[in-house]
């Protein structure tokens, strides 16, 4: 059994947020929902400031606090290390969200169908329609509804039903086909690497072998499957300096 992991090279990341865009397109996430999120942060005082970037997918912990607290087993961890949500079992108590120290969970506060149109874009505009082929809103990746893995369970990959929790799935529908997660394939500077960490020849193992690395909030004992290379973990002086629209409109 493979054991999936992601390596994030902070020395390479340029904060372009292409991964966030790729994730939104692949998983059709609603407005203000960022399964992959890139912090653009700053430390120090002007003029001696330093800017840095920190991509934050779900950490797919090997000791996941969200799985522990779920009262109905909707949040589950597969044997290959991918942590997923069964949207038909989730009761929407949001305990996983408060238990997660990384803030990766997104609850569907509203009916997401309406949220797709909330980008202030006029889809009937001929120029827009020429690109979308009249499909949006809302295109839905058909793979997202498939049952995945040995468990044959739903994964909340773009289920987007109101009142349930969702988060990054490591693009399980792509991984099960032998592909990389969308964010990994899209990264223009190869900052993201994905693969089977138990296979010494996989891209992620090779990458990690050569470099020193750290895991986010490792002291909490969550044992993430996302491993950061280069750079430094965010400290108390790290502040976010710019952010996308993260407000859900009612």
């Amino acid at each position, binding site marked *: 059994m493979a054991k999936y992991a992601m390596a994030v090279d902070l020395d390479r990341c340029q904060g372009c947020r292409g991964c966030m865009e790729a994730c939104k397109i692949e998983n059709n996430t609603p407005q203000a929902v960022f399964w992959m999120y890139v*912090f653009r942060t700053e430390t120090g005082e002007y003029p001696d400031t330093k800017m840095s970037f920190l991509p934050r997918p779900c950490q797919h912990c090997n000791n996941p606090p969200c799985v522990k607290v779920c009262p109905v087993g909707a949040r589950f961890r597969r044997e290959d290390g991918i942590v997923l949500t069964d949207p038909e079992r989730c009761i929407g108590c949001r305990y996983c969200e408060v238990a997660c*120290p990384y803030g990766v969970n997104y609850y569907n506060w509203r009916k997401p169908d309406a949220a797709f149109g909330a980008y202030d874009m006029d889809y009937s505009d001929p120029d827009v329609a020429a690109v979308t082929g009249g499909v949006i809103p809302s295109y839905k990746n058909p793979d997202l509804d498939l049952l995945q893995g040995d468990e044959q369970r739903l994964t909340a990959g773009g289920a987007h039903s109101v009142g349930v929790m969702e988060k990054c799935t490591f693009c399980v529908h792509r991984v099960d086909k032998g592909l990389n997660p969308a964010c990994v394939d899209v990264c223009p500077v190869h900052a993201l690497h994905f693969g089977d960490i138990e296979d010494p020849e996989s891209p992620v193992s090779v990458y990690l072998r050569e470099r020193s690395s750290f895991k986010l909030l490792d002291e909490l004992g969550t044992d993430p499957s996302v491993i950061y290379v280069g750079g430094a973990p965010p400290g108390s002086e790290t502040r976010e300096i710019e*952010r996308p629209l993260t407000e*859900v409109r009612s």
Partner: protein
Amino acid sequence: MTTEAMPQREHTQDAALPQGIGRLTPGWIVFFAAMAAVTAIGMYAYFLQVTNGLIVTGMRGLGTMLGATWGLYVAYYVYFIGVSFAGITVAALIRIFRITKLEPVARIGELLTVVSLILGALAIMADLEKPWRAVVNLIQYGRPQSPFFGTFTMVIAGYLFASLIYLYVTSRRDAAILAEQPSRFQKLYRILAAGYEDTPSQRIIDRRATFWLALAIIPLLVIAHSTVGFVFGLQVGRPGWFGALQAPGFVVLAGVSGIGNLIMLAAIVRWATNTRDRITVDAFAWLAKLLLGLLITYLYFTVVEVLTVTYQAGEVERTLSDALLTGTYAWIFWGAIVSLISAAVLLIWQAVTRKWSIGLIFAAGALVNVGAVAKRYLIVVPSQTHAQLLPYPTGSYTPNWIEWAVVLGLFALGALMIGVFMKVFPIVPLEEAE
């Protein structure tokens, strides 16, 4: 029922049933209508929430959405479960330690336990977008490893069920007495009495049953309130929540709010049913001493907690304690501390002078409940908005009218349940000599 029989029947009811049971006074009708109206507003707000999703509330996601994903509903769920502490504690004091002075308020306490547990269950259901799915999936897929599991099994199922049984067993004698007289509710009393005739041998059996039941419910009480504390205290990823003091703190604050509520309710019942001779100042003094003991324990816990967090001063913990002590939440925190300390001063003053006044004890009961609600809110919310471990900016949360309407609707529903009970059954146990 013939028209001639009516006046005579009314007459016998007046004579037969104590404590104004079955008589609808104008005051009670006004109370009922007001509470029903508030409940209706709460139901309307809940209807809006069910049809539109939780987007209509003030809650939003943690992290990038800069909100609090648990808000007023969870704070009041914790508060309502806490209030349920009252009934069984009083029952245990009576049955196990034989403090007979408290007997007249026993049923008020037991009723308060049952009602507040129901309200707690409804508050947590109001927090869920899909309550029907929650019920089905919890039965089908419930996981004991989740601290929430305790809420649904230990608290709502076990504790509520045990309390209902206790309330029933201790009420059977009164039902048997009332069933002997003709009245509007005679059939109901006969069904409730279920063959109980208040013979000496039955009394002994009853006393033994309630003794063991009280003894069995006490560990259940500690476990149930602890599981609510574990919902927060086991979460290492949320500074301000993680800690071994969380569970015992929850048990003690539950006691403070529960006994405080019982004092207020007993004073209101005493006034409404005109039972001044039955519920004596002595009973209130007992409750006040109990409240004082719990309150001082809780204040001690609070000092220990604040000292631990500010002294060790991890970065995030410092952000959080700054928000609590001097920042956004300072007015709530110091408001809670001032109300709890003034309640303690009121009670200590009365204990020292040995002059107990129901008015002052009532005031202390009200003050501790203000403090308890504020503390529950402070446990739930600030750790979400001000304790992010990754560089998310500080969040904010303000409950909106939908959430307040639902919560006030729950309070009104509870008042309705107690009000209706008072018109059907004696809320103060009947005297032995009747």
